[in-house]
């Protein structure tokens, strides 16, 4: 009974792989390790990138900041009125925010405190978060705080708890917890303390006419670039960041400019290159003999190349898939031992679950990097040897 010859080649390729287990393992093991590490890195990088993108959904359409000698300074409250007068501006909400480094038994962890004006923000629409317990801030609240659910769990904070925040810079104040929230960005669930404007101003030492920045909400967010251009044209020493600009900054930080990931990718590519070199140099005589024999018994050169491609695909895909599977399991276990290295700045941020995101494009990239060079390193010599006459190949033994 005849079937597809390609189907038959898969079976023979599988047996060929098992015929030389040592050779198969010398490719499989480094590939598994390289792909495991690459997938862990890639999924975390993608996770952090998407987490950062989610955090942008909580931001206003335009963020206005004062620049003093190229650094971010305090912005004057009077600018708020001026910007409110622009066409298409729905409201301008001032914010006072900063980082709060707190000494803990595990070292210094840094929280983000943000003071907002609850009367001047369209909660639910503009802040992409959901109150899980208690309530959100009211305009009348003073020294009240709403915290993320991970913050609440880690610090054992409940509704009504009073927390005394004292940072390593000398700022201190007491806040009453009135609610806990959940938001799509896991970093905010762990590090964000939302409080009233006055509470934040007192904590960070702002005077009444100054804010950290101004959040501009537009009636038509698609006009953000236009409005931002108008604001910049009318004012010196300020910068206006639209959501799309922030997205681009995040994309650059996590994609092409993410140095540590690039470095690790280089190491992985080098590993794959060395594997390919080892594969090409180790298959010489054995492959030449087999190709000569197969051609002598009636196999076409293309049949042989297909067989050799299937052999390397079996090993390559096994290394790739088990590596990726290992990466996924490892990440769902919380990336023990390596989590801090992967997150890099975990010593500053409070502990939070490793964000994981698996993109098809990343899986495709892993496939291309893991299997394609190996296939070329096998198929090219196989093709070269396939052009030799069977007699020469057999006699070369």
């Amino acid at each position, binding site marked *: *009974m*005849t*079937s*597809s*010859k390609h*189907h*038959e*080649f898969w*079976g*023979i390729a599988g*047996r060929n792989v098992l*015929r*030389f287990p040592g050779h198969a393992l010398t490719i499989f093991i480094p590939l598994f390790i390289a792909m495991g590490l690459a997938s862990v890195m890639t999924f975390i990088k993608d996770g952090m990138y998407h987490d950062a993108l989610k955090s942008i959904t909580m931001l206003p359409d335009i963020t206005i900041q004062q620049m003093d000698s190229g650094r971010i300074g305090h912005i004057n409250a009077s600018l708020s009125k001026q910007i409110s007068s622009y066409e298409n501006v729905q409201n301008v909400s001032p914010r006072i925010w900063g980082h709060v480094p707190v000494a803990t038994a595990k070292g210094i962890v840094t929280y983000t405190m943000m003071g907002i004006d609850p009367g001047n923000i369209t909660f639910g629409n503009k802040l992409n978060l959901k109150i899980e317990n208690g309530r959100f801030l009211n305009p009348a609240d003073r020294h009240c705080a709403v915290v993320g659910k991970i913050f609440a769990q880690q610090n054992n904070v409940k509704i009504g708890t009073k927390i005394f925040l004292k940072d390593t810079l000398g700022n201190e104040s007491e806040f009453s917890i009135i609610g806990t929230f959940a938001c799509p960005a896991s970093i905010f669930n762990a590090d964000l303390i939302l409080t009233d404007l006055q509470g934040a101003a007192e904590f960070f030492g702002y005077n009444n006419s100054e804010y950290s920045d101004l959040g501009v909400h537009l009636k038509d967010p698609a006009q953000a670039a236009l409005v931002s251009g108008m604001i910049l044209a009318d004012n010196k020493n300020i910068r206006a960041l639209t959501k799309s600009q922030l997205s681009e900054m995040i994309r650059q930080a996590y994609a092409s400019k993410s140095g540590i990931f690039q470095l690790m990718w280089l190491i992985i590519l080098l590993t794959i290159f060395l594997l390919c070199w080892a594969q090409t140099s180790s298959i010489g005589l054995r492959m030449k003999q*087999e190709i000569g*024999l*197969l*051609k*002598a*018994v*009636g*196999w*076409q*050169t293309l*049949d042989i190349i297909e067989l050799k491609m299937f052999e390397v695909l079996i090993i390559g895909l096994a290394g790739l898939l088990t590596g990726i599977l290992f990466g996924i399991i490892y990440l769902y276990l919380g990336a023990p031992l390596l989590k801090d290295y992967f997150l890099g700045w975990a010593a500053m941020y409070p502990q939070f679950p490793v964000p994981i995101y698996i993109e098809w494009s990343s899986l495709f990239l892993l496939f291309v990097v893991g299997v394609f060079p190996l296939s070329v390193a096998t198929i090219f010599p196989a093709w070269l040897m396939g052009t030799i*006459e*069977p*007699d*020469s190949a*057999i006699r070369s033994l």
Partner: protein
Amino acid sequence: MIRINSLKKIFRQGAKDITVLSGLDLNVKRGECVIIRGPSGCGKTTLLNIIGCLTRPTDGEVFIADKRISHLPEHFRCQLRRSKIGFVFQQFNLIAGYTAVDNVGIPLAPLGIGESDRRRRALFLLDFLGLADRADFPVNELSGGEQQRVAMARALINAPDIIIADEPISNIDAQTSEKVIDILTRLNREGKTLLISTHDRLLIERLPVTSSHEFNAGRLV
């Protein structure tokens, strides 16, 4: 069945040309058993390899079933090897690590013949050659004589018209040699054309030889 005109084969070794075949002619009719004799290194294997489409001549023509094969593209030569010619190598040339049955069935795989069918056909031939009980042994665990019979089974798997055997009993013991000679004789009686190179008198005496040719200075006499 096989016609060779003015066949030449020159090997280049460094800067030196070595002429192995120089204007060789040969005619073999269907069903004949032809012996090529000569000492080692005289060019017997080269001649068989050219007829078996394993290498190309430097000059001259080779016809098989009235088709000029010496200048055919590799694709068609491969089809010929697959359909018309069964080759038994002097060194067996089996694939190490494969079982006997896998070695015998391997030429059928590119035809899309399934594993169970390949196995059935290979087992039939191994049984015919007295190796049914060794079918699932890796070939590297078989004796020289057994490996030679596996190589013969592989050569027969595509039911070729022509069987080319290069020194088929030079690497096996006397008892196995008798078996191989019996098999070759049976194949010839079934109508297969045999082209055998040897310098062994036993083979020449025992086979139903139609014609025997001696190599002399790159030609057959």
